[in-house]
């Protein structure tokens, strides 16, 4: 008899595999849009993992904001830049197998170290529980209120910076003078 927890565990492992595979595809694609699409797949699988781990609010946010807003932003910028086929051939030039060796080695060593640390600590049994959005909300506006305010400040800063930095050079600030 398949217990509910075991089924959820297998969902986790399958989603994990999908996430890893699609992440590998993200970093190896030559076309930017392809990479973005694979990224969205990875994010969606991670959202599923969140859901399975009893964090539905985080899952929803992951889908809405991460996959829905941030990735779309990436897509917009890539389309704005309009690089075309030239970028793809250039990527092919840059991504020879030889260039993979060093970074792969570093990443592999890091991963092995982390895995080694984590595997050596034994297995911690966990009692599954779902954490509702209401609990998250109470936590946010309770003890983490300051963090919320700071986050909003950060967003404001990001907003102003993005507007300012994204302007074309020579654009005037406000229409006090004649635009030539």
């Amino acid at each position, binding site marked *: 008899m398949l217990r509910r927890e075991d089924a959820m565990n297998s969902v986790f492992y399958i989603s994990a595999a999908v996430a890893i595979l699609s992440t590998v595809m993200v970093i190896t694609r030559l076309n930017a849009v392809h990479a973005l699409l694979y990224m969205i797949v990875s994010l969606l699988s*991670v959202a599923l993992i969140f859901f399975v781990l009893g964090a539905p609010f985080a899952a929803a*946010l992951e889908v809405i904001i991460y996959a829905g*807003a941030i990735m779309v932003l990436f897509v917009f910028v890539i389309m704005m830049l309009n690089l075309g086929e030239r970028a793809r051939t250039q*990527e092919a030039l840059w991504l020879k197998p030889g260039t993979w060796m060093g970074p792969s080695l570093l990443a592999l060593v890091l991963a092995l170290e*982390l895995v080694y640390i984590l595997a050596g600590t034994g297995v911690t049994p966990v009692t599954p529980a779902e954490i509702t959005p209401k609990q998250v909300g109470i936590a946010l506006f309770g003890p983490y209120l300051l963090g919320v305010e700071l986050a909003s400040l950060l967003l404001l800063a990001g907003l102003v*910076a993005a507007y300012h930095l*994204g302007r074309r050079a020579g654009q005037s600030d406000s229409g006090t003078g004649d635009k030539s």
Partner: protein
Amino acid sequence: MASLPMEHGLILAAILFSLGLAGVLVRRNIIFMLLSVEIMLNAAGLAFIVAGYAQGQPDGQVMFIFILTMAAAKVSVALALVLQFYRGFKTLDVDAADRMRG
């Protein structure tokens, strides 16, 4: 809900993180580098969620929300910078901006 050992979730986060790191180190295109950084941030958020799940507290999700906010702000600023970069250097090769060498 899953009764997954915490370590497995963290191992997944570690693997995703190193994949993102490999992406940062190997890709020369700025867009891809930013994408890889997003992967890393996502992996960190996953680690927090796993911790929150292990403790049964909402703190993990709270932390994830903060990470998400920060990632959003960062991406918007970074993409604006990418636009300027492209206008200035006419290429998205990050190695073109190496004037700070010693």
